[in-house]
Every structure is written in structure tokens, then in C-alpha cells.
């Protein structure tokens, strides 16, 4: 997205500049407004934490004293003021990523690209780094673009999401939309962390999504009463997206067609979002 890799087709527009058409020199200027953090941190191992953070400022020729002041301020923001003179080799993964974030913020960028930034961190550290990103996002008001395969990360901090499958953009929308009502098979596949989708047996399978308080209503037993037939639950989960609870349930409807129709009618009446998953049900 910042032309470290040249796109084979399409355009990248940051702040009104089409990056494809820029000269190398102009591109370097734009890169200072769209900085980046990486899965493996990519810190300069031979430089202290402070020098790592001042590095982008050194590139643009900021006076040493001013760069140092700015770096100390940034280390304060990322919570590492006491590590200024340490070398990256002595830091933990989470601390290294904090340094990388401070370094990425040094030039006051408008966009921060996070390339699998939490993928090599443990769950605890991942949370802390995400908290930090959220904090930076609201405090400094910069856009954060997050590339990840961890759905939890997206639920935690994103507002909009785009699903890419086979290097094609297949679906975009707000996180709530895409998570609760995925339109494409690729998106759907992502949100079934279990292999439930693979073990579908006889009979049509549907996915139910409950929002908020509906999760507390006895919908399933009501449905069984309505169709007088057994229903198996293949997969269920409750996810929290930005503080709001979403329940989802994958069930297998009775093989008997009439019973299945009754069940669907009941669900429709109770205003639960129903989607077909595996077989021939038009949700």
C-alpha cells in the first residue's frame, strides 16, 4: 500500500496522491505521511531505542536536539520512557513493537499501516498493543490500517473491514455488518474458526445471528416446538464487537421438508437473521 511492493493493477491513493504516478522522490515524501509497523518489528539492532525512534527524523534532517525531544515524548506515549538507552535485543516482543510504533509516529503521519503487527505476539501482549493503537487513534486522530488474519484483532479495534481472498478484495463494510451478515463465502469462512462448516451432514444448514437482548429469548426451543422435529446444533458462539454482544448459531434443520419450512417460518417471525450456509436453503 506504500509501494514497497508495486501493485500489478489498480491504484493506491493516499491523501490525494496516486502513488503509482509519483517519482521515487515524491514517493519518499508520501511515505513519511503513511508509516508502517511490521510483524517482526524490524528495528535497527545496532541502535538504541532512542536512536531507533529518532531515525525517521534523522532521515529528514531534523536537528538532533529536537529529534531527541520528540523521541522522548513518543516513548512516553508508548509507555517506554525508561528504555531510551536500551538496545532492541534486550526488549521483549511487545516492547519492540512499542518502539516500532513510536518510530512510526515520529514524522506525524496521517496513516499508520500495521502489517500483521500483533501476529508474533502472545494474546496478552496483543491486547496491550491493540489498546495502545486504539489510544493513539483517538488521541492523535490518525487513520490506522490493520492487516491481520486474527479475527479477534478486528473485533477488538476496527470500525471498517475489508476481506481479501485470493488477493482480491471480496467484501467491505463496517465490522458489525461483515461479522454478523457476511455476504460472501470467503468472509463466512473466516468467521467460522471451527471446522463446523466442513462437517455438514444431511439436511439444510442455516446460520442464525442474534443481536443484543435476543440472545436471551428461548428461540431454539420455540422453534423445535413449532416444527416438532429434532434440530442439531453444529456451532455456536457469542462474540463481542466493540462492546456489543452478537450470538451466532449454526443449526441443521430437520431433513423433513415440511418441518424445515415450519422452523424457518418460526425464525422469520421471531426476527432472527437467518442465512443459508451449506445447502439448498434460501435464507
Amino acid at each position, binding site marked *: 500500500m*506504500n509501494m*514497497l511492493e508495486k501493485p500489478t493493477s489498480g491504484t493506491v491513493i493516499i491523501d490525494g496522491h496516486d502513488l503509482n504516478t509519483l517519482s521515487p522522490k515524491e514517493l*519518499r*515524501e*508520501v*511515505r*513519511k505521511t503513511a*508509516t*508502517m509497523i*511490521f510483524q*517482526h518489528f*524490524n*528495528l*535497527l*539492532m*545496532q*541502535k538504541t531505542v532512542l536512536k531507533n525512534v529518532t*531515525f*525517521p527524523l*534523522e*532521515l*529528514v534532517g531534523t536537528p538532533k536536539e529536537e529529534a531527541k525531544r520528540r523521541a522522548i515524548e513518543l516513548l512516553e506515549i508508548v509507555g517506554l520512557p525508561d528504555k531510551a538507552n536500551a*538496545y532492541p*535485543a534486550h526488549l521483549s516482543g511487545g516492547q519492540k513493537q512499542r518502539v*516500532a510504533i513510536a*518510530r*512510526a509516529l515520529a*514524522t506525524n503521519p496521517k496513516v499508520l*499501516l500495521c502489517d500483521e503487527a500483533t501476529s508474533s505476539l502472545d494474546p496478552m501482549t496483543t491486547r496491550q498493543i491493540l489498546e495502545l493503537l486504539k489510544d493513539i487513534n483517538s488521541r492523535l486522530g490518525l487513520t490506522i490500517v490493520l492487516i491481520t488474519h486474527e479475527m479477534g484483532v478486528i473485533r477488538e479495534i476496527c470500525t471498517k473491514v475489508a476481506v481479501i481472498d485470493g488477493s482480491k478484495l471480496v467484501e467491505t463494510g463496517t465490522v458489525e455488518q461483515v461479522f454478523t451478515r457476511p455476504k460472501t463465502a470467503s468472509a463466512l469462512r473466516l468467521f467460522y474458526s471451527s471446522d463446523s462448516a466442513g462437517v455438514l451432514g444431511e439436511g439444510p444448514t442455516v446460520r442464525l445471528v442474534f443481536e443484543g437482548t435476543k440472545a436471551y429469548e428461548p428461540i431454539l426451543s420455540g422453534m423445535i416446538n413449532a416444527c416438532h422435529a429434532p434440530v442439531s446444533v453444529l456451532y455456536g458462539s457469542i462474540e463481542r464487537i466493540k462492546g456489543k454482544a452478537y450470538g451466532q448459531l449454526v443449526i441443521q434443520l430437520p431433513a423433513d421438508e415440511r418441518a424445515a419450512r415450519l422452523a424457518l417460518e418460526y425464525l422469520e417471525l421471531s426476527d432472527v437473521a437467518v442465512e443459508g450456509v451449506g445447502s439448498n436453503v434460501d435464507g
Partner: protein
Amino acid sequence: MWTASFWSQMGVGLLETLYMTLVSTLIAYVIGLPLGVLLVVTDKDGLVPRPTLNKVLNVVVNLLRSVPFLILMIAVLPLSRLIFGTTLGSTATIVPLVISAAPFVGRVVESSLREVSPGVVEAAVSMGASPWQVITKVLLPESLPSLIVGAALSITTILGYSAMAGMLGGGGLGALAINYGYYRYMMDYMYIPLIILVIVVQIFQLIGNTLARAVDKRK
């Protein structure tokens, strides 16, 4: 062997050897360092891909590296005469030493620079660093410990070549060992220079390793 003249010969020999080695290493680095950088950055996956230039450099380096030093020395005698007016003595030997050592140094520098993680280079580029900035502020500083170890390797190799140069009228300890020890069967002239050379190599290697450890912040 325990005469003053013997030891003064050894002393002069040692100084000549050090002179040849250090001056040659210095000049070899003036050529080899940029050469090593070019070999890395013009690579097809490098910072400034120039595949044709890269191929040419690689061929030239391989050619020079495949010529045995003694043959090379004979081959460049005319060049030594052209530059220094003579083919004899320590100074004249610097010419073949440099020609032989520069490509070697280039390779050593190249392998050091390749140790720098591509991710770090990518990070610098993503911050808007120009190729020149990446070379001077990332590639060279990040590989400094390895470059120093490489320099110790280069010095000791060139020291070995300089001793060989004694065969063809070069100066130094190698010349003493060959002219007196080999041609006249004076065993002390054979073994004392050898011992001194071994000690000198040890010292260079020790300095190199100590320095490299001191500047290495990766552990």
C-alpha cells in the same frame, strides 16, 4: 641466529610485511567496500536493481578471484613497473596485492551486508529513506560487527599473499624465508619468520574479534 644482524633483518622484514599488508588492505577496502555495496544493492532483489551491472561485476570478481595469486602477480608485473618504476620490493608488491584482494574484500563485504535483515531495510524504505540513506544509515552500521570480522579475515589473507610475494622479489618476512631459508637451507631464516607470521595473524584476529564483540549490540 642469535646475532644482532639476524634480528634486525627480522625486524625490517616484519615492518615491510606490515607495510605491504596494511597499505594493500586499505586500498583494497577503498575499492572493495563500494564493490561489495554495489554487489548487494544492484542485485535483482536489491535496493536499486541493475541486473546487467550486477552480472558484469560478478563476472569480473569471479575472474579475478579464480586467478591464483602467484600467477596474477607475474601477470601484473608490467603494471607494477608502470606505476612504481620497479617490480621489486614491498611497494611494487602492493599492486598485485590490491588487485587480488579488492575482489576478495568485495565478496567479504557483500556477505556481511547480506546478513542485514531485509525487513529492516524495508522498514527504512517505508520511512522514506533514499537508497543512499539506506546504505549509509542502515546497511553499513547494522552489519558493522560482521564487517569488522571480515576485515580481520581480509588482513590475514592479504598477509598470507604478501608472504607469497617474497617468491618473486617482494619484500618482507616471506622474502626472508624464501631467499635464505628455502634457497640457502638456513633453517632459522625459515622458521623464525614463520613463527612471527603466525603471531601477527593471531594478533590481527584477536583485535578483530574483540572489536567486533564490542560493537555488537545484537546480544
